[in-house]
């Protein structure tokens, strides 16, 4: 067993990394909401891991989705009803992809673009909520608002500092998160448009 914490900006990079781990003999067992990946040793290197981007309006729909893929031999190793990314393992390598035609690949990119766009909007909203002045975005120290915090010492300093850190990180980081998600959303959008154009060229 091995646990790894890793954050990815891009689902395709994440998929490549997980397949590299498989090649090294580490098979994904589960992923939690904080991106802690649990791996198990495996000798079967024929396996393949694929990501799908789906969230569900009801628990029943989620169960039906999982049952549908299970019929095709895919094993659900990560993802929840709300997680949007779903992790699928195929132990046989018989079907090496979740998608077999262009229009479904196009739709996959479209879903990714939408979801990252939604994250970016959420980060924008947070940015507005916590906005005081622009220096809070460039200097983490300025994102701490406790008066005289940096002159305090010992216990007084640490208790105030630790208490405020989550807020300060939110104040400092929200526009950067917005930028990151915005860029990923755009990248996915261009991939989606490119796939769509390829399809039009073919018909």
């Amino acid at each position, binding site marked *: 067993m091995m646990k790894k914490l890793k954050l990815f900006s891009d689902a395709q990079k994440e998929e490549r990394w997980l397949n590299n781990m498989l090649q090294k003999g580490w098979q994904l067992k589960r992923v939690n909401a904080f991106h802690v990946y649990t791996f198990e040793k495996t000798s079967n290197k024929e396996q393949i891991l*694929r990501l*799908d981007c789906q969230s569900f309006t009801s628990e029943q729909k989620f169960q*039906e*989705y999982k*049952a*549908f*893929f299970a*019929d*095709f031999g*895919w094993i659900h190793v990560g993802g929840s009803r709300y997680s949007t990314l779903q992790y699928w393992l195929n132990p046989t390598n018989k*079907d090496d*992809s*979740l*998608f*077999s*035609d*262009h*229009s*479904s690949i196009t*739709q*996959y990119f479209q879903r990714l673009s939408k979801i990252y766009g939604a994250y970016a909007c959420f980060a924008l909203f947070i940015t507005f909520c916590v906005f005081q002045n622009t220096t809070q975005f460039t200097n983490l120290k300025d994102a701490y608002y406790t008066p005289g915090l940096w002159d305090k010492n010992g216990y007084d300093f640490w208790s105030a500092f630790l208490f405020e850190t989550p807020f300060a990180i939110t104040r400092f980081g929200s526009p950067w998160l917005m930028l990151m998600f915005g860029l990923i959303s755009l990248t996915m959008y261009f991939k989606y448009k490119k796939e769509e154009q390829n399809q039009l060229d073919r*018909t």
Partner: protein
Amino acid sequence: MKRHKLLPLTETMHYILLALRKPLHGYAIMQEVETMSNGEVRIAAGTLYGAIENLLKYNWIVLVPSDDSRRKVYRITDEGLEILEIEKRRFMHILSLYEGGFNDEKA
């Protein structure tokens, strides 16, 4: 008349609609399509899942009640059959152009 967004049908959609002239569940659709296409077309799980969602949205297929609680069974609707008719006419027309072309060459 404006053409429907999904027309002309992709190969995948075509095979799914043709297979669903009899009621089938997800995996059985894939198997049926594989047989119908002599093993040429193997629809992947994610593609079939998305296609079914789409076809249900346009009411070209419907859910049919079944004894199997775990698997949903689908069947083509009258609207779906009409779409197949439209596609059939399109294919017949193209086919006639093919054959017309060959006749010209012979003449």
